[in-house]
């Protein structure tokens, strides 16, 4: 993939064999929250550095001047390097980004290079002032550093249970499939009353349209019957 492969459609890149892949762009909300976590952590790291330097200079018997001198240099390096170093070491992620499932990628969806990660973080002092507004206004949610570096921030969550359906009644379309998947995926998180109500309606629908598809007879809780019917592959 190179820059010439960029699709004119915003946030969509042409991957291998020209297959379009829409990048799941992270918007201003999750990015600001991730940044907030990182800045709080940076303060903590600076505190640890200060206490550590104080203890270390006492332990090594350094003159106070040298201890303060090293502290100043370290604090400066942390201030400018905290984000960039983490993103370089952890493939475009900082602790805050990890918490919110975000990752910095190149404009074409590839892993961002070290140069790009350095550039986007060296203009952070300007982005602290204008970044939020720029992210809110830009269709690709880029701050100034992203524009300069040619990067985007995307959602990249860990894998979760997406495939919950192993068999379907014949002739079922996408809408019905989505309905069943959505219910089975969310059933454990729903309020008990809502789970029962939705489950009964779905059970009725399946029994009407595909009699005999669900095993057994309706019981007080439709979830086990639906689960067994859609989840279990039968030879």
């Amino acid at each position, binding site marked *: 993939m190179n820059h010439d492969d960029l699709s004119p459609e915003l946030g969509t*890149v042409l991957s291998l064999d020209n297959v379009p892949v829409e990048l799941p762009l992270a918007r201003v909300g999750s990015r600001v929250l991730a940044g907030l976590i990182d800045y709080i952590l940076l303060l903590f790291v600076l505190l640890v550095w200060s206490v550590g330097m104080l203890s270390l200079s006492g332990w090594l018997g350094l003159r106070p*001047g040298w201890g303060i001198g090293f502290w100043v240099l370290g604090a400066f390096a942390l201030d400018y390097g905290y984000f960039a170093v983490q993103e370089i070491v952890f493939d475009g992620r900082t602790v805050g980004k990890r918490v919110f499932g975000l990752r910095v990628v190149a404009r074409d969806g590839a892993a961002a290079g070290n*140069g790009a990660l350095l550039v986007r973080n060296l203009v952070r002092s300007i982005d602290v002032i204008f970044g939020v507004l720029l992210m809110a206004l830009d269709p690709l949610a880029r701050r100034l550093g992203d524009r300069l570096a040619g990067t985007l921030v995307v959602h990249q969550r860990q894998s979760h249970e997406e*495939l919950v359906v192993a068999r379907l009644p014949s002739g079922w379309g996408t809408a019905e499939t989505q309905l069943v998947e959505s219910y089975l995926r969310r059933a454990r998180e729903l309020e008990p009353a809502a789970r029962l109500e939705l489950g009964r309606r779905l059970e009725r629908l399946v029994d009407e349209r595909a009699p005999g598809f669900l095993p057994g007879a309706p019981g007080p809780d439709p979830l086990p019957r639906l689960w067994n019917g859609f989840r279990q592959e039968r030879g």
Partner: protein
Amino acid sequence: MDYARFVALRRPLWDSFERDATAARRRDFSYAEVEELALRYRQVLHDHAWARARFPGTGAAQRLHRLAVLGGTVLQREDEERFSIVRFFFERFPAAVRASVPWIGVAVALFLVSGLLGWAVAVYEPGVAVATLGPDRVEDLRRGHLWTESLTTTVPPSISSSFIATNNMSVALTAWAGGALAGLGSLWVAIFNGFLLGAIFGVTARFSMAGELGEFVVAHGLLELTLILVCAGAGLGIGAALLRAGDLPRSVTVPRAAREALVVLFGCLPWFLLLGMVEAFLSPSPHLAFHWKLLLGFALEICFLTPIALGLLRQPVPAWPLEGTP
């Protein structure tokens, strides 16, 4: 093919691709492994395209979309050359500075003009002295003392060297990053520092102390200003890329210009550590004669400029307005 059959047939491939692509982040894969993973990525992409068209919004389509993005970040990486510190300082950095020479020229010209202006204003307008240096420092000058003497008397040089180095690096970073504001930040640093330095020399000249100030700055000042103006020039290069329309879209030209400017910045930053020590330990020292400080100042400047000058000799500066440069 119906949805359930599609999932049943292809799911083992998706599972194995996800497992190996995630593992590829944590360890280096051999060429054969990468090639095999890329082959599976192709299949995943085709499944993704098919699921998006046939089963939009379903669990399979969602998962394949996630895998398509994952594969892109694992298997594709921006082109980057292998880093070598020798090659960086003797080839990449001089070449990047060479590409920025016209913009560095702009920064130097603005610095000199504003410096002259600052000097003239300070000489002919006494009120500027207090505004520039503050009443305490002006009082010191009246008594025949430079404020720089306090660098060694009130703060140990080990501390002041760190503060000086980080402060100068901050100025250089501001000059560089200021390019992102269409070059305005870089222009501001060049003009403001020129005016301030001119005004300070003007004020000390009024109190007949310019010679003493010159003796203080000669060892470190020449290279320090050079570095700041080089970074400002690099920043102006970014600003120009943001403003100028060309054959390629800005999404291509701006990152290229920023990468070149980054090379310039990283070639300059280490020097500030050395200059911080020179400014704190040697510049205020009464035991080091003026001619030695002068010699040190020129030696540092020559050390910095030599690799760039050698690069200039090998390859001429591009014609204005930077034809053929990023």
